């Protein structure tokens, strides 16, 4: 409790770091994962652009990334990280592996959502002469919006807990604080506080995600 002052400011700092890391990496994961999910969906057997090879290739890449333990991924892509953000340490460097890890995850979730879209509606668009791009942008994405939003929420929440591991390369954030003070130094109260902050963050995130998904689902049912 002596250094409570220090800790509080550190928690504030860590909260900002977490928000930044998770915000940016969720955004990027969605931006990268969505096209990948579209490819997985479209090239799957029996789908619009059925293509064994592209599907298998995309699937293998996704599976490789997803099966590698995060800490190894973190190390393995350091060259990529350095090339992209110029350094391999710190918050920005942490975002790269978070994105690389989360994008394939989101791609799978998006793929699952796309599969739930009524094939009749896609067929109707095709009958009107829509190109594949138009089917994607004007049918697939809007029709699966509730699922995509719920999926983004799941991804963001997962990233909050993943970001704890970014401490390995000095990424900071709440999770790192919780691990270092709480786990390694047995400062239970610090652990509790940081965890509480994380729970609040997740709760807010989930609430927002639910609202958005429900908003779109209500209209489209």
């Amino acid at each position, binding site marked *: 409790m002596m250094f409570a002052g*220090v800790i509080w400011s550190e928690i504030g700092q860590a909260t900002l770091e977490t928000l930044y890391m998770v915000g940016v990496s969720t955004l990027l994961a969605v931006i990268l994962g969505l096209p990948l999910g579209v490819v997985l969906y479209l090239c799957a057997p029996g789908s619009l652009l059925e293509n064994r090879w592209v599907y298998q290739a995309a699937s293998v890449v996704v599976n490789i990334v997803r099966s590698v333990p995060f800490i190894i991924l973190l190390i393995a892509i350091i060259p990529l990280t350095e090339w992209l953000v110029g350094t391999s340490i710190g918050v920005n460097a942490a975002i790269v592996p978070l994105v690389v890890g989360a994008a394939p995850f989101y791609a799978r979730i998006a793929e699952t959502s796309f599969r739930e879209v009524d094939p009749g509606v896609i067929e109707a668009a095709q009958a009107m002469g829509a190109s594949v791009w138009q089917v994607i942008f004007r049918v697939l994405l809007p029709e699966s919006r509730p699922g995509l939003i719920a999926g983004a929420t799941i991804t963001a929440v997962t990233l909050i807990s993943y970001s704890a591991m970014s401490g390995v390369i000095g990424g900071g954030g709440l999770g790192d604080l919780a691990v270092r003070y709480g786990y390694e130094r047995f400062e239970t109260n610090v652990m509790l506080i940081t965890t509480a902050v994380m729970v609040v963050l997740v709760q807010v995130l989930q609430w927002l995600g639910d609202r958005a998904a429900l908003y779109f689902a209500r209209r489209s049912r």
Partner: protein
Amino acid sequence: AKHAKHKQTVVLKVGAVPTPHAEILNFIKPELAKEGINLQVVVFNDYIQPNRALASGQLDANYFQHVPYLEDYNKKNGTHLVPTVSVHFEPLGLYPGKSKSLKDIPDGATIAVPNDTTNEARALLLLQSIGLIRLKQPANLQETVHDIVSNPHHIKIEEIDAAAIPRVKRDVNFAVINGNYAIQAGYHIQDALAAEKANSLAARTFANVIVVRQGDQNKPAIVALDKAITSPAVRKFIESHYHGSVVPIFLRYDPNGKIVGEIH
């Protein structure tokens, strides 16, 4: 039933982290087997669980920590774990990164240090010992970056996971690396710009010890373990195997963690 005439084999479960602890334990496995002790090495990837498991009786001994860490653990968790003998010491070294020499250290240089409690404190003490910074309580093993009272070069300390430091070394000016990680990453202690001295106080303080539950020190199996792991064969194994990144140091402790003598 065939082996009934043999001495009953005793299972001895010892928790350890992989390098070099588990390797050293595996080295003495045959030796102990001759005495009818079946040594089972439980490998952990972590510094909390081996103590927990020992305290709760799931292990008979562990070998991964130094005495200050053990005392800290006992104090915070109310456990009664005691050291018996020490085996080795892994000196921390300060390695060059973007900057090649300490002489032309740039203002605002970044130095990567391990982010776990004791290693971080040791790293800071090492930096203090070469005059780069000054700490509030020089002997405290819980010093963090918040305890730096003087920092003339405006050094920025980056707290990184110990095993990741070799991998990010080229993005910092200097890096403080644990002996075992340095050798695994292909660096030699000789490359270090500064290192904890092998016969220093640091070595005696941070020597890695065999730890057991209080009262178990004199159990025959433990005594045999202590004897086997402080044998000349082990000394030779360590010296030939780790090229100075791991240094043998055989000390005997009393139940209070005080050094009572050296083993020759």
